[in-house]
């Protein structure tokens, strides 16, 4: 995986004009929401708030409760407890059973498989939710949205005549048409092939920002989450493990789960003295992130990703360990190195640097950022 510099990446989008009225206003707030299916808890005591115009992505492995949370916001599921408030109005309250049906909420949804109505044209699909406008206003709004998603020439086509990326843009336009308070995107890119997926990420973010809509997306693809979102909420076991802007979350995972979920993480065990003693030699404590004083003399695990380490072939006496596996990714190799200390770490190398399994190597810590660490459990 390529090295992330998310804060810089996001600034590329800043030039896009937005229509946000008050960027500080909270549009969606979820407060202590749980959802149980029988004895199984899908979501547990989840709280989250999203500001106007923000794009937040819930990221997590299968079964972490992200889709259930999305469906509760939409009104397709009712929370067992807790409240959900959209634009100042409580739409679900588990305590008193108050519940607004999906059609009574101003929430748009882009479904994973788009759910375009196959018997209606592109324009008719987009106009579907515009029953409160008269014909001229509807036509005008549809034209506006076709322009927004760049499909002006396709208004009379049937959904089956469109490519995957075009179908997705129609789905976006259809859900944006009634000007929802919140737009929900359920695994929006999972039905696209890899090449188109990267292109559509940029495109969808552009459309959402131009529409100025508050959006919540759900995915298990970390690259997608980190690249399109203003904020990422990492979920695990029905709860939020960490929420923050993509750069902060990636650089400084607050928990071992978040660390191991983002990037190809390895942990280097180390003893804290006045320096840091590891299987790669000793380092100054300033290379760590956050106050370490309280852990003097203790063992900690330092998070190292493949791009933080560099392996060099050497002869056995000087080696830190040896290569046990080589993974070829095209542009680069990821070598798995078993250290004499027993730790297993990953090193990323240019695709021309080929080492064989069993090669003794010396591993260097080349990271130019502070390293996250966790007390050894």
């Amino acid at each position, binding site marked *: 995986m390529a090295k992330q510099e998310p804060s810089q990446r996001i600034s590329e989008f800043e030039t896009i004009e937005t229509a946000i009225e008050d960027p500080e206003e909270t549009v969606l707030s979820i407060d202590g929401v749980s959802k149980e299916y029988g004895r199984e808890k899908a979501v547990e005591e989840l709280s989250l708030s999203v500001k106007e115009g923000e794009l937040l992505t819930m990221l997590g492995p299968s*079964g972490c409760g992200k889709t259930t949370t999305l469906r509760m916001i939409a009104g*397709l599921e009712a929370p067992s407890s807790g409240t959900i408030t959209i634009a100042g109005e409580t739409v679900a309250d588990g305590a008193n059973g108050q519940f607004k049906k999906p*059609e009574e*909420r101003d929430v748009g949804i882009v479904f994973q498989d788009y759910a375009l109505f196959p018997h209606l044209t592109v324009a008719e699909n987009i106009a579907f939710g515009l029953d409160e406008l008269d014909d001229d206003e509807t036509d005008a709004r549809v034209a506006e949205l076709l322009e927004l998603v760049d499909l002006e020439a396709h208004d009379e086509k049937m959904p089956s005549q469109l490519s995957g990326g075009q179908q997705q843009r129609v789905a976006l336009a259809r859900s944006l048409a009634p000007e929802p308070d919140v737009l929900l995107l359920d695994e929006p890119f999972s039905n696209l092939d890899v090449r188109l997926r990267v292109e559509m990420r940029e495109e969808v973010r552009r459309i959402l920002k131009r529409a100025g809509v508050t959006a919540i997306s759900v995915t298990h693809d970390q690259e997608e989450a980190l690249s399109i979102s203003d904020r990422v909420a990492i979920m695990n076991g029905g709860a939020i493990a960490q929420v923050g802007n993509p750069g902060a979350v990636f650089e400084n995972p607050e928990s071992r789960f978040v660390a191991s979920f983002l990037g190809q993480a390895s942990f280097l065990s180390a003893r804290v003295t006045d320096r840091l003693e590891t299987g790669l030699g000793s380092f100054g404590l300033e290379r760590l992130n956050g106050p370490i004083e309280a852990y003097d003399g203790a063992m900690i695990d330092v998070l190292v990703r493949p791009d933080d380490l560099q392996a060099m072939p050497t002869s056995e006496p000087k080696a830190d360990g040896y290569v046990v596996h080589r993974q070829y990714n095209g542009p680069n190799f990821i070598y798995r190195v078993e250290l004499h200390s027993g730790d297993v770490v990953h090193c990323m190398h240019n695709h021309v640097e080929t080492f064989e399994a069993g090669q003794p190597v010396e591993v260097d810590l080349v990271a130019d950022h502070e390293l996250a660490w966790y007390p050894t459990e």
Partner: protein
Amino acid sequence: MGTSDRLERIRERANVTDRDADEPTVLAAVVLAISLLLLSPIAWVLLEASEMQAGRLIELVASETTTTVTVNTLILVVAVTALSVLIGVPLALLTVQTDLPFKRFWTVTAALPLVVPSYIGAFAFVSAFGPRGELADLLSPLGIQQIPTIYGLTGTALVLTLFTYPYVFLTTRASLISFDGTVVEAARSLNASRWDAFKRVTLPQILPGIAAGALLVALYTLSDFGTPAIMRYDVFTRMIFVEEQARNLDAAAVLSLLLLVLAMAILAVESRIGAGRDGAYVSSGDRRAGEIKLGYWKLPAMGFCALIAALCLALPIGILGLWLVRSADATQAGFVFELQHVTNSVTLAAAAAGLCVVVALPIAYLSARGDGTLSSLPERVSYVGYAVPGVVIGLSLIYLALRFVPFLYQSLFVLVFAYVVRFLPQAVGTTESSVLQVDPSYIEAARSLGYGPITSFRKVVLPLVAPGIAAGAALVFLTTMKELPATLMLRPIGFETIVTYIWLVRGAAYQGQAAVPALILVGVSGLSMLIILRQEG
């Protein structure tokens, strides 16, 4: 998307109904009421049998007639099923796996006999091979006075086989086509001979297909009324009709009960084999094994196909043509085929089709979208029509009407209800499969765009399932047009349809008069076949 993710999704979808609990409850209540009505014919048989004194019951069950009828029926079912397999499987193999010339043509002629209603086939065979029939007329100048009789077991089994073997042909063909030919090549590469490979690899995999067709044949044979009646062979359906005409209510009920037990037994076998079908490997790819070269066997193979086609298609249609020509000059008074017969048939069929659609939609929707066993129960119940022969439905509705709703006795309402019980599965089947093709997220999408559940259904689901509903209606319409036993038993006095007219002139031996209506019915069956093929295609 990973499997576990998909499972989560399915589980979540299944739970969507939680919130909308009130709407499905109303739907479920309506559907439950319909189900109870559908079960009423069976209820009558049980009621009648339970009210009988034990002594009388045993006397009837053990009577000589009952024993004879049971044995006759079993022999007929076994014979027809076995013969159908013997004709259907070779035809399927020839048209799928060999280099038989004109394969397309033979495939069509092998499937086509299904469009001839079996009682019309029986009618034609009696006319051709019966006493004073065409063959006898042809042979008598040669001094041959006696030909083997067509009546009885031989004729019944022959006719039923010739007009039902296509079930076996079609299901076997389907499994041969979906079956991965590379495994045969693999077997050959492991040094199995062609015959060995067929026996050890092909046969086990197409066996469920053969069995499914064979069971359809068995069920049809069990419930067919027209053929045994015309061929004068005493089986359950014929005897139930006779007892009903003689007003021997208890005897008819006991015979009906036994017939139902047999039908249930066949259905039970069917569902067991159906469950076993999961085990059979059906490849998604359509790789076929190399064609078998027939060589010298080409001619005999074509001869076999031609013989079957001649017996099943050329003969009945030839006889009908002959009648048509002969009847042109001699019309018997009192047996004139009138437009009124056609109008009556069409009106009845349209009423049955309309009602079936209205009843089928909620049942199919609940079954396709509901959350488990309970919601698919009504759909299962609607399948009684397949298991309960028309004679039993006719009989039980006569007595149910007399007992509970006497003002409806001999009304068209009861007749239409009989058609609904009998043919509802066809409408439920086509409707359900089209509902299943509608992505459940369409409804969610419509609701997220501000429409209530009923409006969402009307605006999104209904337009998408309309073709399936139309196909179901057409199917019910066409099968109602040619239904014989229930129409015969339940029609109001003096109300004649195409089918009852044919029955009437047959009884009076004015066969010539039946040509036009019989040809109409063959045409009608042909159309329903087309609809079935289009649905499956």
